[in-house]
């Protein structure tokens, strides 16, 4: 058993767990935070995406013990206009991929601002307005079997635009 303390959604939480417990299982089964979902448990669907110190990760591929002392944000700790944009644009149907899509989008927007390259943008390119193509490329690790992709892209684009407005004003 290993002692771990993780700050989850701004609150320090401690656990005594076997080392093989995934971060996702720690969140869902030990902390009762069932916002992050388990679609595959092997890094293929993105449903379990959470933010670790602001960066998006697949929590099913992470061990809880690796995150000792780190800050994890799950959907329960997110309060962002992106959430209402998802609802307004119907960027969801069953809702099972949704927490992952939202956390992933938040992480992605931050990466984009920091100039992280993608298959669509050249490295060092000026991160101008976020295009639909760019969003699709950068969000492709998050599957949606219901096919809410169009609404998700719109919601992200709308929210990104809000963000740029704020920065420039």
């Amino acid at each position: 058993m290993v002692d771990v303390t993780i700050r989850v959604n701004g609150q320090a939480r401690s656990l005594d767990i076997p080392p093989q417990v995934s971060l996702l299982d720690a969140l869902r089964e030990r902390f009762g935070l069932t916002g992050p979902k388990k679609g595959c448990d092997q890094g293929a669907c993105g449903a379990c995406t959470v933010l670790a110190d602001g960066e998006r990760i697949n929590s099913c591929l992470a061990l809880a013990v690796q995150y000792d002392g780190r800050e994890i944000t799950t959907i329960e700790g997110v309060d962002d206009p992106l959430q209402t944009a998802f609802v307004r644009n119907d960027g969801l149907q069953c809702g099972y991929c949704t927490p992952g899509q939202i956390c992933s989008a938040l992480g992605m927007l931050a990466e984009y601002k920091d100039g992280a390259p993608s298959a669509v943008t050249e490295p060092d390119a000026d991160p101008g307005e976020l295009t639909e193509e760019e969003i699709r490329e950068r969000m492709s690790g998050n599957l949606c079997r219901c096919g809410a992709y169009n609404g998700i892209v719109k919601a992200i684009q709308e929210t990104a635009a809000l963000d740029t407005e704020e920065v420039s004003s």
Partner: protein
Amino acid sequence: MTALQQRTGSVGTPVDRVDGVAKTTGTARFSAEHTYPGLTYAAVVHATISRGRITAIDTTRAADIAGVIKVITPENAPPLKPAPRVSMLNMSSIVSGTSVNYLQDNEVHWDGQPVAVVVAETSEAAKEAAALVDVTYRTTESSVDFVTARLQAQVQKGNPLLPAGAKKGDAAAALAGAAVSVDAEYTTPPYNHNALEPHSTTAAWDGDRLTVHDATQSIGWFRTHLALRFGIPEANVRVIAPYVGGGFGGKAFVWPGTVLAALAARATGRPVRLTLTREGVYRTVGGRTPSIQRVALGATQDGKLTALIHQSVARVGRTGGMPEQITTQSRHLYAAENILLEQRAVEQDVLPTTSMRAPGESIGTFALESAIDELADVLGIDPIDLRMHNEPDRDPVDGKPFAHRMLREAYAEGARRFGWSARSPQPRSMNDGRWLVGMGVASAFHPLMLFTSNVTVRLSADGTVLVRCGFQEMGMGGATVQGQIAADALGVPFDAVRVEYGDSALPSAPMAGGSMQTASVANSILEACAKIRASLESLAKRSGAVGQAPKAVLAKAGVPHVEAAVGSDTRLGKVTGQMRMMRQVMRDRRYLRAATGAHFCEVRVDQDTGELRVSRWTSVFDVGRVINPKTAGSQLRGGIIMGIGMALAEETLFDPRTGRIMNPSLAEYHLPVHADIPAIDVSWLGDPDPTMPLGLLGLGEVGITGVAAAVANAVHHATGRRVRDLPITLDKLVP
């Protein structure tokens, strides 16, 4: 118009879905997210042979893992009653995914069948122990390879609801004598639903009462089924499923996990959660049948169809299965003079196949609509013109009238929106740099039934409305749409209506399948609301409040609320309900009712690598009246996207020697991702269907039909290559 009849104008408006906030903030709890004191976790051990017997199970190593409570095998499993035989008189009997009585004997019927279940204090311990259960088998010869077994296929038996074939005139002779003909074989692979939420059941017993939180799209039938398997009264079982993370047919039937969770809870005396791994979903929940289809078309020089032959081979498991009505659309889409439709199925030692979004038509349209395109190419006629030239006025086989048919309008509107006139008719004649560009069309077709539903509606003195109905919400938008319908029917604002659903303790609704849930539930809500309006009117008369708002009427009459029920779940109520349903089905047999549509697809194919991209999409549907444009648009897009997946990437690979699924994961079974999907332009004609409540036609399935053909047709136009074997992967396109 009295105050009571005023419409609030909720129907037809793009209301945000009511569960949107819960789903975007993480408060929505799915079936694996309910805790019970003393909750335990179960993991399944899967058979590794396709047919034979278990000769020994050694559980010592598994039982030694810390935290393991019990390893349940055929040697120590509590008794379970066999699945009921399928009977049309008891609709719930069709809900067994397989006929196997799990853990009750040593027989193995498919690779992946559960042979043991481990229950432990943690999911980690259960998983670890499950991997340590040692099973020895004696194998028996089995049939697992679909391609080589096709010759053993037997003619499929139809039923009154789903005819399995048709014959009009002499299609073979007409084909032989036709001026122009095409005759080809099309194949589609097995597919899996891959709802993003894996199947999960949390089961808790209290004496002989059972509560299950299950990811299901058949709440009522699950309850009946579980009661039967465990020999307890139906009233003792409660199935709860307010949030279901996608179904697409994969959660319509009862698969082993549900039964085993309840069995494990009974065996241990503890509440059990059994969440299938993604691999476990592939191994224990059926998928779509593969198919081999022949379509032969004969026509005159000017494109009049004289012969239409569609023959299909599908597969089922030896312990059950769903062969799909693959030729359905071919019965209804074209006015051919001679028609021959035949469906065959072969029984194999694999997990039973099951219904998957638009069973039949989604793969049947691939063959038919590809063949029509091939014929258009041979004739040198525009594929839309060829279709319109053969558009029937009545149902082609039996001459029944159409309830509603606007395929012409759909094509005209689609062509305009898509810009079809920019297409140059020759294949491989359009390009954009190194990308070959192609445009294709295909028809969407999905027949529709109406079921019956029980429901109660209550209007309270504070002006709020409560609708109670045990229907299921997997993201189709039912919870929102039914509220809109009730709001308008009672003349109250949408926000005043609350809808309770997803629980077998509520009045029972049909399963979510066949695109019939919305209309079936709406029908009963409308009836209940009409009853309420009638009671309000008599109350108004009695208390001198005629013409006043419902709230005022109730206040004046001193009545706290008015409630109306449609149908009842008593034993007598069930019999009456069954009769009502039969009457409705008989009435509906007088005409052909279907949702239809026209798909327009543009693809780009890299001329050197064969990389294929769907670059533009337009679909126009005839789905009757649309209650909520927002959720309807999402449903239709979702169907189209699943169709694009079918066309381009999806395929469940069975090892032809062992029958084991070789790609049971989301990494190896390729679903469409964001980057595969362009902005999809969907619209509808909006004309209400005269035979349906509010004129609405179900739209959960029509979207996927025709999609794969539209893609294949566009690929042919782009490259000159006709791909008749799905999915259209790069290897089929490289020069």
